[in-house]
């Protein structure tokens, strides 16, 4: 099925993104007024920008797909994706901003000046997390492209990678918070419009009580997750958000710790609003699932729904809007991740030069494209859930204990992160090789967060206790810097 409008939407989004990249600088204001020039990024803009970068393929396509696949337990995903920011607000946002760190390895270095290996290991983990996170975006691109235009799926990742490489290397897109903020509102609109049309189409069909009943039975009839899996997923999503490199980088833009907190509160609101939409679409998807064509991939629900419910031009144009929004989601999240990744690589291997950053950008996109092309797509929300579990077992303990526990030692941090990485990574790998069975053991391997996150914490604390002599001498000073509220005139 080739839909010309969808193909057009796809081209428009890609070309617009590149145009903004090339002319990005013109968007920043030119003035002769110092007061105007020195206005910092307001929390509202910053929050929209975080939302724009955060809402990825998993949110845009995956959430609805998961509700179709596993019914009401799929609802835990949007809740977890949002509630993670509550943890960020409570435990990390303000202290991280006050630490002056730009990236997570920077934070490790501030907390443990002496330990070069801790910085290295943190960098490698960040690289792995970014790669793992980019691959599902590429899968989403492959799926969307093949459904929207009928072109072979591998072209999707290649297009996304090419556009991202060009935008990141030319550097324009990054400097404009405005563009990323716009991405959030664009994605929101790309789901609001179809949702409203679909609801208007669906509501008059039956009496409302009968409809509600049918939704309820549909939601319950789908086999969901068991208690253990649910707990594990919630843990992974709550703690995983704390370590996402591309989100944490944005906090540097906030002038103070207080502004970092306000930003996070607004992000919570923005995400809550956004997730109403994929959830609604998922429920509508359940009602129309049989019509979507039997064994079609559930992740495509959002893409297929408009034309399944509405005929003709209206259906096609709504599909085109969704396709555009989906590609915007892949592009913005991927470019955010690639910038973090390329930054980490260039810092580690090229001494932070301009040329090094460019080489790193190409490296950062090439590998995920390759992986995405040779592997087949998992359920998008589930794949991202795994990345969150991995982040929660590695970076999250480092940040939480690093910020809140003065007795953490570099060796403890290293031991905890490596244990978490090994436990979570191996469990996920083994479970993907085993045939699916309904035993607790298998569930524990497939959703490792419930035990791998506590394990990482326990190892980190135990090893720190055992090496208590090597608590850095400046620990108290650093803790004070993290926790004492900012003075009015900064620094």
């Amino acid at each position: 099925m080739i839909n010309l409008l969808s193909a057009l939407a796809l081209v428009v989004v890609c070309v617009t993104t590149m145009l903004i990249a090339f002319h990005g600088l013109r968007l920043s204001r030119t003035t002769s007024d110092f007061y105007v020039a020195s206005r910092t990024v307001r929390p509202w803009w910053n929050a929209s920008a975080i939302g724009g970068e955060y809402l990825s393929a998993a949110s845009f396509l995956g959430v609805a797909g998961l509700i179709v696949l596993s019914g009401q337990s799929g609802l835990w995903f949007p809740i977890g994706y949002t509630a993670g920011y509550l943890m960020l607000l409570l435990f990390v946002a303000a202290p991280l901003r006050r630490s002056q760190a730009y990236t997570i390895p920077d934070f490790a270095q501030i907390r443990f000046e002496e330990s070069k290996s801790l910085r290295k290991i943190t960098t490698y983990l960040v690289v792995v997390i970014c790669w793992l996170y980019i691959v599902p975006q590429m899968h989403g691109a492959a799926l969307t492209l093949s459904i929207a235009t009928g072109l072979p799926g591998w072209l999707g990742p290649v297009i996304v990678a090419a556009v991202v490489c060009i935008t990141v290397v030319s550097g324009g897109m990054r400097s404009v918070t405005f563009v990323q903020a716009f991405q959030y509102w664009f994605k929101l609109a790309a789901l609001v419009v179809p949702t409203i049309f679909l609801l208007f189409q669906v509501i008059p069909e039956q009496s409302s009580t009968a409809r509600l009943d049918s939704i309820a039975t549909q939601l319950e009839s789908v086999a969901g997750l068991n208690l253990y899996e649910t707990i594990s997923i919630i843990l992974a999503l709550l703690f995983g958000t704390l370590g996402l490199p591309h989100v944490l980088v944005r906090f540097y833009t906030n002038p103070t710790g207080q502004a970092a907190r306000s930003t996070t509160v607004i992000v919570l609101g923005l995400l809550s609003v956004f997730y109403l939409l994929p959830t609604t679409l998922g429920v509508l998807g359940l009602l129309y699932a049989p019509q979507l064509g039997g064994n079609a991939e559930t992740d495509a629900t959002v893409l297929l729904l408009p034309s399944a419910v509405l005929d003709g031009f209206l259906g096609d144009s709504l599909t085109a809007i969704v396709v555009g929004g989906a590609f915007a989601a892949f592009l913005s999240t991927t470019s955010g991740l690639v910038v973090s990744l390329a930054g980490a690589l260039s810092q580690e291997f090229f001494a932070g030069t301009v040329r090094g950053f460019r080489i790193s950008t190409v490296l950062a996109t090439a590998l995920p494209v390759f992986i995405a092309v040779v592997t087949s797509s998992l359920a998008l929300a589930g794949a991202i859930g795994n990345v969150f579990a991995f982040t929660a077992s590695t970076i999250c303990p480092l940040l939480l204990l690093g910020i809140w526990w003065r007795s953490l030692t570099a060796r403890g941090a290293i031991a905890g992160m490596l244990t978490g990485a090994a436990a979570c990574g191996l469990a996920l790998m083994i479970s993907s090789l085993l045939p699916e069975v309904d035993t607790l053991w298998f569930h524990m391997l497939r959703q490792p967060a419930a035990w791998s996150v506590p394990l990482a914490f326990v190892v980190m604390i135990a090893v720190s206790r055992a090496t208590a002599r090597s608590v850095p001498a400046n620990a108290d000073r650093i803790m004070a810097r993290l926790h004492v509220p900012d003075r009015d005139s900064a620094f």
Partner: protein
Amino acid sequence: MSPALQITLIVTIVTVGIAVIGYFGFKISRSTKEMGTDAEEATFTTLHHMSVAVPHLERGLTVEGAAKSAKALRRLLNCPVLLISDTRHILATDAGIEFTADLEEQASEAFSTALATGKTQVKRLSGQDFVAAPIMVGNQPVGTVTALTPRAGAGFVRAVSEVAVFVSAQVSTAQLDENKAMLLEAQMRALRAQISPHFIYNSLNAIASFINTDPARARELVIEFADFTRYSFRRRGEFTTLAEELEAIDRYLLLEKARFGDRIKVSLQIAPEVLSTRIPFLSLQPLVENAVRHGLEARPDGGVISITATEDGMHAVISVEDDGVGMDPEQLSSVLAGTTVNMHVGLRNVDVRLRQLYGNSNGLIIDTAPGAGTQITLRIPKFLAPGTASIDE
């Protein structure tokens, strides 16, 4: 599992196994062949233990470093207990036997006498002896190497003394590094941009000219002048934010405009994301002052100064540009190299500070030619590794 797969697996395992065994066999046979005579081997072992002990002492006598080097030194001296102390406490003990509180007390006495006399001391207990040798830096003892041995002969005492001399050399190097860091810090303080005398003189003259004609403006200017001087005289911190530095530049330009009127125009293009970036204190104002003084002052119709700041991955890129008379690149490079004085001192000052803080590749980038204006660009990492900014706070 299919037979073909099984065969492939078995072949792989066997190949890898043979490769591993072969590799280790080769290494072992080579290492025994090359070991040579007993004397050569002894020399090698001694030097090896020494080289293991060295790197841990490069930061001086620290608890962590001492613990690691004590281990290597004990193996070198082949004694049951070896401890390293500073002038008061035991920093690290490496013991092959149980090290009791009683022994610890005896050891403390032994190294105290060694510290007091500045010479190697032997303290004989029943059945075992402590040998304590002072670690000297200059003529001052800064710590000791103390070893416990069943029976301390002259040879062992000499060996301990030699080890102490060796450790002394390492600790001295560490202190040298520390002195170097202090020197650097002093240099940084001296380089910290000073407010230029020209500017004070010119500003006060400009203000004076307004006192009769426009007292309100004169009053405003005096306040701006006071605020600017307060900023540039402040003691706290080597760093400021881009936003604060821009504020200071604004004040500076207001005062210059009092003299030049509308001949100086300013155009700003600042990405708000980089406003909170930490930059060295007074690193931009001298560049703007250079643009005014050497770029625009000489032109009767003045010109435009553009300040831009953008984000570039892990860095913030800030540039100051003027369309004034430009500079001679040859002359400029001699200024930056420090061979010419007076002209553009502010530029050199900023350049040196940037290089010291961010490494040699992050100095000023200057594009200029006579008559073609000047563009000066800074590329500042958003994150500065701790330790480099020693005068912060």
